[in-house]
């Protein structure tokens, strides 16, 4: 009982520092009107950039020739191996400093590029494993119909491979959304600020960390529904379109009395 005062004080400090409801309420409007949109823009841009890079890198990684695989292998190993924060600085500060300025002096573009490059490295491996898990007979069947390698991959193999790795990709998307907060380091201009930047500004202004909690809630409002959305999509694709029509009568393959055509078949 003698130590009661100390935990009480600590608890109060925690409540005061992170659960100042007034500050949280004050921060939300700016988070929602400015930060949420910018976080979505950066994350969505990075995801698109990442998927494009990843598709290309995955195709290279699947090559029989080592010198085709090599550049993709280096890319994946480097950007999966580097801390995110270093890549953000390399791309956002290093590129413009080296005279490579595809987005001029606007940090927003570099932010998307940096997160996209990191995302691509992880997604490339996800795609590669998904594509490799597709039965080689699928490629053979497509090629036997006269499709070129690239067309067969695009129409037959890659769509199947990607469907199999949707849950892994949901995880990657969540990471992309969270890591978009690190572009704060690039000093976004007014109107470009994402969730974490805005919260951090409020923290600096008020000497109170409660705005971070508000930003956290906003991140969860993005990541959790997205995970469930992708999982729902995955489930629907797995089960295929809902069809429960009985097999057509008189069909010789259907045992008598008719039972669903898939019964007993290992497709």
């Amino acid at each position, binding site marked *: 009982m003698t130590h009661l005062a100390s935990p009480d004080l600590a608890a109060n400090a925690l409540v005061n520092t992170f659960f100042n409801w007034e500050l949280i309420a004050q921060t939300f409007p700016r988070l929602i009107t400015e930060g949420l949109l910018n976080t979505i823009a950066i994350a969505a841009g990075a995801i698109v950039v990442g998927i494009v890079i990843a598709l290309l890198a995955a195709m290279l990684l699947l090559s029989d020739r080592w010198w085709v695989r090599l550049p993709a292998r280096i890319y994946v190993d480097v950007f999966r191996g580097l801390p995110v924060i270093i890549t953000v600085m390399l791309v956002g500060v290093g590129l413009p400093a080296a005279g490579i300025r595809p987005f001029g002096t606007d940090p927003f573009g570099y932010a998307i590029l940096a997160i996209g490059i990191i995302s691509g490295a992880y997604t490339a491996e996800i795609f590669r494993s998904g594509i490799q898990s597709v*039965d080689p*007979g*699928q490629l*053979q*069947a*497509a*090629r*036997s*119909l*006269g*499709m*070129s390698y690239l*067309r067969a991959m695009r*129409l*037959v193999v890659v*769509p*199947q491979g990607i*469907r199999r790795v949707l849950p892994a990709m949901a995880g990657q998307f969540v990471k992309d959304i969270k890591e978009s907060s690190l572009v704060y380091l690039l000093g976004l201009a007014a109107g470009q600020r994402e969730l974490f930047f805005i919260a951090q500004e409020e923290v600096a202004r008020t000497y109170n960390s409660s705005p971070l909690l508000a930003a956290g809630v906003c991140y969860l409002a993005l990541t959790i529904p997205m995970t469930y959305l992708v999982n729902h999509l995955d489930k629907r*694709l797995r089960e*295929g*379109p809902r*069809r429960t029509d009985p097999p*057509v009568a008189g*069909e*010789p*393959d*259907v*045992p008598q009395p008719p039972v*669903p*055509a*898939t019964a*007993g*078949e290992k*497709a």
Partner: protein
Amino acid sequence: MTAATAAPALRVTGLSKSYGTHTVLRDITVDVRAGETLCLIGPSGSGKSTLLKCLNLLETPDNGEIWLGETHLTAPGADVDAARARIGMVFQHFNLFPHMSVERNVSIALTSVKGLPRDRARETALRRLAEVGLEAFADRRPSQLSGGQQQRVAIARALAMQPDVMLFDEATSALDPELVKDVLAVMRDLAAGGMTMAVVTHEMGFAREAADRVAFMCDGRLAEIDTPGRIFERAENPRLRQFLSQVL
């Protein structure tokens, strides 16, 4: 069974193939005449399936030439994709595309390879599916069909391209026994209709009845090639006799 005309639809000369130090095919020379059904039989591991996959270059031969009609497939720079579009292939495990409807499985190459408009491709696909008795299943997924139905879809898919030659790679081996006869019936109709066919099979009944010629393969060589009557009734090759005694 149709009387085969003289011109070869498919000509193979001096074909050989090895994986590392393991030789799978040794100096194979064989014609498939236009309109003919040639059945390839032999013990497992004798190279039948590899030979078939060399014919449309799904496997690359080490040596030898393959001619499809007047087209030299093994020439450097030959348009292999265009040639494959003229050679239909049916696989042991069907290899239907599970993410597409049955109809799309049949029409996908019509739109993407032949450049047909979508509605005309669908029309053709439905007609082909009707020929194998499965037009009612056009909008199902392959996984909703039985194995025998799936294999008939695979045949319709290959036929939709109007191939010059059809290759069947153990098309009934993965099927439950009661489903085999429907697939064989489709293949018999095709043979009777004058389609040029090379058929790797373990169905000796089919080879005996539907084949114009039967080729016996053994240790990567084409050991015997003759009419079904002479192969099945008057075999002299000891390896062939041994093989037939095991499977008949």
